[in-house]
């Protein structure tokens, strides 16, 4: 009730202060976006459940699906969105391509969390439960209904909350895209909804209206979180904190995938006769076939449909001095630096909260409502109005850096906060009593008890935070406003990619930058986060 009252009040205030004619259609736009996010959520849920359960229960399916989804989640979705959208617009004219493109972006924003949540949860079913189920003759649908689904539900809910919020965050990016042609003329592809409403208002300089749209979107996110997810979570008894380790378990790395390919191509064929090996080879072959098919379809589409320069021109362009390639190392560092600055700030906030969560009894009373509120901010939607607002009083570069910093922080901080605070609160009471009995207090307690205890959660949170950060940094380094002949840019990998996509329209170049960016993402994840996690995992406290 309060929820609808709040929405109504926002609507009335909006129509009073901004003007009836401007806000009259907002409920309609909001419903369209809500419908879009909800439908894509259900599709993601279906796909995630089906493939997740398949991958978790069938070895062969796991070998194919997990690496595919792992690669999928490692590539920043806003990076390949323009590529996909370009194809879709050509393949499905009359606005149908736009809609499919928007849905596709939302799908990729939601799917990975759900899939890995399901796989992790099914794999985490205790073997004693599985054995008991088998002993009592649960098979097929009974097994699914009484064992798998109940076991998956808590993780599925946690993943759904993440997916739902991410879906809304990317709504604004999915509904409104502008390509510039060589003459600098902009072509806009948009689908009707709250996201494009916000974007359009910003483009036209109605900054109050765009903030108003952001407010409405935030309210919708907050209300749906409270009405749907909290209710469901209260109903599903969760006995353990569902940490993000469950959402993104380390199942199989692309590096191992590479090794398998090498074996396939004869570099490592030593074992042929053993039946186990043979089946492994078979599935590897199947994976290879899928890959080759996908690659050739993409390749064919590229050459059949796009007026691109020849491969030679591409190579010479990126390798010539002062060409695109020479910028890559420095610009990559700029982008990483931008992410790092936001990350460090998030780390400070998170550690403070972790200490408070352990030392202050009623911390949770204040933390979780604030967390819910903060998590409802559609940060991608905030970025553009924020930039334009700041731009009014600050130099362009500074205002874009600040807006970008805030965007990155909002994208990163929640993963860290949620994981670390949950872990801090789940700290076994025995450890807290140990520190009391032996007088471990103050700073010593922070460094010797609290920090080591939350370290695994902290690293998982960092992994997720950087993933989220890469996704949005692409958005912040390039801003194209209507009536502006050149875009506002920050030097960075995201800018290079956006420039290739929206200005040059050069698909091979976009793919090239995507490879570099995904390479950095995967390397950071494998070389830093996963490795750290492995190292600290065995020192983790046992949650009971």
């Amino acid at each position, binding site marked *: 009730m309060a929820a609808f009252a709040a929405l109504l009040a926002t609507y009335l205030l909006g129509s009073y202060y901004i003007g009836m004619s401007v806000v009259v259609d907002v409920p309609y736009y909001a419903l369209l976006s809500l419908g879009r996010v909800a439908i894509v959520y259900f599709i993601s849920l279906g796909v995630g459940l089906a493939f997740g359960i398949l991958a978790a229960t069938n070895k062969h399916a796991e070998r194919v699906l997990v690496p595919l989804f792992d690669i999928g989640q490692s590539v920043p979705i806003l990076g390949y969105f323009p590529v996909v959208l370009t194809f879709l617009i050509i393949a499905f004219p009359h606005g149908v391509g736009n809609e499919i493109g928007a849905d596709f972006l939302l799908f990729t924003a939601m799917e990975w969390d759900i899939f890995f949540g399901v796989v992790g949860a099914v794999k985490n079913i205790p073997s004693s439960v599985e054995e008991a189920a088998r002993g009592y003759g649960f098979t097929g649908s009974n097994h699914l209904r009484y064992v798998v689904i109940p076991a998956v539900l808590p993780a599925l809910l946690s993943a759904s909350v993440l997916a739902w919020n991410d879906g809304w965050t990317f709504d604004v990016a999915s509904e409104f895209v502008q390509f510039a042609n060589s003459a600098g003329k902009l072509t806009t592809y948009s689908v009707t909804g709250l996201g494009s409403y916000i974007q359009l208002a910003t483009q036209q300089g109605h900054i109050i209206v765009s903030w108003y749209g952001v407010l409405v979107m935030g309210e919708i996110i907050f209300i749906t979180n409270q009405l749907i997810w909290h209710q469901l979570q209260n109903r599903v008894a969760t006995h353990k904190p569902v940490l993000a380790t469950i959402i993104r378990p380390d199942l199989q790395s692309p590096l191992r995938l590479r090794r398998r390919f090498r074996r396939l191509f004869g570099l490592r064929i030593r074992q042929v006769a053993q039946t186990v090996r043979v089946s492994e080879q078979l599935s590897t072959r199947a994976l290879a076939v899928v890959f080759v098919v996908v690659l050739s379809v993409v390749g064919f589409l590229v050459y059949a449909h796009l007026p691109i320069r020849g491969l030679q021109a591409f190579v010479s362009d990126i390798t010539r001095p002062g060409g695109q390639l020479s910028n890559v190392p420095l610009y990559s560092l700029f982008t990483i630096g931008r992410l790092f600055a936001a990350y460090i700030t998030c780390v400070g906030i998170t550690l403070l909260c972790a200490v408070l969560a352990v030392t202050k009894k009623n911390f949770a009373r204040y933390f979780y409502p604030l967390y819910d509120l903060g998590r409802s901010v559609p940060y991608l939607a905030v970025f553009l109005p924020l930039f334009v607002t700041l731009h009014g009083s600050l130099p362009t570069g500074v205002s874009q850096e600040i807006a970008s910093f805030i965007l990155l922080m909002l994208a990163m901080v929640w993963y860290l906060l949620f994981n670390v605070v949950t872990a801090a609160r789940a700290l076994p009471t025995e*450890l807290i009593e*140990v520190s009391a*009995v032996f007088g471990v207090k103050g700073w*010593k307690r922070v460094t010797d008890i609290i920090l080591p205890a939350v370290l695994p959660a902290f690293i998982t949170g960092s992994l997720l935070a950087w993933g989220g950060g890469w996704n949005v940094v692409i958005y912040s380094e390039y801003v194209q406003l209507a009536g502006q002949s050149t875009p506002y840019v920050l030097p960075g990998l995201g800018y290079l990619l956006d420039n290739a996509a929206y200005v040059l329209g050069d698909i091979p170049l976009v793919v090239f930058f995507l490879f570099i960016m995904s390479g950095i993402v995967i390397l950071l994840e494998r070389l830093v986060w996963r490795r750290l996690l492995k190292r600290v995992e*065995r020192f983790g406290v046992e949650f009971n």
Partner: protein
Amino acid sequence: MSATPILSIKDIVKIFRNGSEVKAIDDVSFDVNLNEFICIIGPSGCGKSTLLRIIAGLETATSGQILFQGQPKTQPTSKVTMVFQTFGLLPWKTAVENVELPMEVAGIEKAEAKARADRYLKMVGLGMFENAYPHDCSGGMRQRIGVARALALGPEVLLLDEPFSALDELTAKSLRILLLQIWGDPALPTNNFVMVTHNVEEAVMMADRIIVMSPRPGRVVGELKVPLPRPRFEHLRDPLFFDTVDKLMGMLSSNVEEQM
């Protein structure tokens, strides 16, 4: 009996209030005399752990007080330390670091702390495993580290909350022997033990005196002096041992039936 008891538990009442009220302990009083090994026994949920935690200063009593060497005690001190049921070791510290931590906090010099930690780890039979992490240790080894940590500060009183209940019987047996040795060693400053258990044989085997508690709310419903001479291991086949076990069983179960 010496004149002043080392520890006096006086009229302790504990009521947990969070939403609903749970009366966990209802007016418990007893003394721990100098050099005494006390066991507290009672059914699960009768407030044994709560009582021990109040003695340790981890929980405040709703009413009543704890006197330590005649003085009221409400806070944890290095004179009264504790061995935990599931060991309470820090997983990110090695055996020796776990033992050193309380000494570091107490301001004992680094070299001295290290030397003491070495000595106590040797005493509990872990001289070779100083640099092992808890996750590389068996349950029995972990509890040995827990014991070394609690003793390294040289406390007057050692509190133990079901220290063997997370261990298998064989491991538990060897640890019981170790604890009795430590308790009886006049060279060590720690000679007053208060141990919580729900194992009747264990209580009879180890205690000088057993405090018997009722189901919740926990009250003291009896006290039993164990008449067996020490070392007890030579008397585990004595009829006297079985009689004492039977008697304690009787005290525990009559009380349960009374509740039903």
